[in-house]
């Protein structure tokens, strides 16, 4: 029989339902298993997913981890508390300032260490600048995943370059900043640095407007992202999804508001929330959060007090916190970044644990992708925002 002649529907016609189709004619039925990654450019590093395809539709997707595993936690348990600080840069290498802060926060909770006011403000400035870097890059990479070859990404990288130039002039390194210390920060920015940062932040909304004019209403973008990769709030909470991905599903949970760590309680900003939990909402979360970050930064520059940047009682060399344990977490650009530390009174942590938002946000990747095409799975993965240095540790 010529397969191209239209014929009466067979008894094996497509079963209804969005994900699983029981089709047994000669076109369907054979499932194809595709191993995507670990060297695939759109898996954002060495992430690998084993996708089972029925035609172009995904019927199964299993993530495979560990290609960048170096047992970060064991290495940290074999070195001093301070010795791990530069290594935390390598976890989420786009957001080293926030990762540093999360680690410093956990150690400060463990040791009961106070932080002076100026350092708290500087931390907020660095963390929010990092959020700008991360979110603008993410949006650029998302468009790369959608198939626009590099143009939006280069616009994003132009802005990122300005921010990491600032990081370099302050900390000596563009990406591996190693800036936070237990009880403060490492270097005090000069007035010139602050003026340059202020100018950058003043100009940032113009970049966002330009970016949004180019991308947000784009027809292809809307067609490819709206209604794709939906995630409902109940499942997202149960699966421990955090950060912009959770808020895109409409859950109001931002640790800057909930825990009010640092001095965030004194800042006036809003938490953007999505309504549909699809890829488009996750994209919009990033854009809106960048606008809120600009607001926080403006307030921080205005109010930055003078004073020391390190607590005079802080101890760096020979630092031995008392026996105990502490869990410190903060709102990283990718989600809740936590460090869990157990001290036995020795110079090395007895247990050092990173709670990686990138890894845990992937828990529901399969559920989000099922029924979509493999091209959509790439976009959904891009909208979750992972960095493999943190996923595999």
């Amino acid at each position, binding site marked *: 029989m010529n397969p191209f002649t239209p014929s009466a529907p067979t008894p094996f016609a497509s079963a209804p339902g969005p994900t699983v189709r029981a089709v047994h004619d000669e076109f369907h039925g054979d499932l194809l298993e595709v191993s995507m990654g670990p060297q695939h450019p759109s898996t954002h590093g060495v992430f690998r997913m084993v996708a089972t395809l029925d035609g172009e539709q995904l019927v199964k997707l299993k993530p495979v981890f560990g290609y960048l595993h170096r047992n970060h936690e*064991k290495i940290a348990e074999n070195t001093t508390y301070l010795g791990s600080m530069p290594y935390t840069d390598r976890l989420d290498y786009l957001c080293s300032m926030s990762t540093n802060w999360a680690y410093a926060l956990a150690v400060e*909770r463990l040791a009961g260490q106070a932080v002076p006011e100026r350092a708290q403000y500087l931390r907020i400035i660095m963390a929010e600048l990092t959020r700008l870097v991360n979110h603008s890059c993410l949006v650029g990479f998302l468009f790369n995943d959608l198939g626009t070859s590099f143009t939006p990404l280069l616009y994003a990288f132009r802005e990122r370059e300005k921010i990491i130039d600032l990081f370099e002039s302050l900390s000596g390194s563009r990406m591996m900043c190693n800036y936070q210390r237990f009880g403060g920060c490492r270097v005090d920015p000069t007035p010139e640095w602050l003026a340059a940062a202020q100018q950058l932040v003043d100009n940032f909304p113009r970049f966002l407007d330009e970016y949004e004019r180019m991308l947000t209403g784009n027809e292809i973008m809307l067609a490819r992202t709206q209604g794709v990769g939906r995630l409902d709030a109940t499942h997202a909470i149960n699966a421990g999804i955090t950060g912009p991905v959770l808020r895109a599903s409409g859950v109001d949970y931002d640790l800057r508001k909930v825990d009010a760590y640092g001095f965030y309680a004194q800042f006036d900003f809003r938490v953007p929330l999505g309504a549909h939990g699809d890829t488009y909402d996750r994209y919009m979360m990033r854009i809106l959060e960048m606008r809120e970050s600009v607001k926080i930064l403006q307030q921080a520059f205005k109010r930055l007090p003078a004073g020391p940047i390190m607590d005079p009682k802080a101890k760096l060399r020979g630092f031995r916190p008392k026996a105990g344990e502490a869990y410190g977490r903060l709102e990283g650009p990718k989600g809740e970044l936590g460090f869990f530390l157990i001290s036995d009174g020795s110079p090395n942590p007895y247990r050092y644990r990173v709670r990686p938002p990138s890894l845990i946000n992937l828990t529901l990747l399969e559920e989000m992708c099922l029924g979509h095409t493999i091209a959509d799975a790439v976009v959904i993965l891009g909208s979750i925002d992972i960095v493999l240095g943190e996923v595999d540790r």
Partner: protein
Amino acid sequence: METLEQIRARLLLAYPAAQITFVTNPGPAAEHSLLIEATHAVEIARWLRDDTALHLDYCSNATGVDWPDKTITDVATTTEPDPAGGPAKTVETKTTRLQPGYLEAIYHLYSIALKQGPVVIRLRTANRTDAVTLPSLTPIWRSCDFQEREIFDLYGIIFSGHPDLRRLLMWDEFKDHPMRKDYVEPDDYEWEPTAHGAVLERAKPHQSAAAAPALKTGGTP
């Protein structure tokens, strides 16, 4: 939010047969925790999640800790009167005992609905060798899925009831559990025989004399 003692009291009312121990955290963070007996862990976890006052719907962090066997020296001081009538002497007697090791899984629970937390619960295995099974809390909190796989991978705790318990980070053929405190790294993870002196030297202890292949040096194959 109610204190951990109050939660413990309510839990004991709901599950009178369960053993729930309050574990004090001596550090400045003072995040105390509840040690829950493994047999009741799933029910108690479900109770913690569904209780209207707690509503701990979000398990933020699940992690393992290895506590190897430890020799503990107890020092007992007694005072003995001096037979000659002088000041009493203090005598220290030292006794050593072996505290058996165990593996521990720690869960940090928060409530997103009520914006409160954390409540820290811990589960302990009977020992570190053969009785290393704990109930999986993945059916309660899906966020434990990858994290329990990681604990299984790196610490060797077997989570019964986990839907997909495989190694997460190490490769499937890997035998040991590298985060344990007594783990000894191999000299070379990717050892293969090559005719380079330094590598061969390090490889020697891994080869038995009979199995060692005769290596040709120079000449044509």
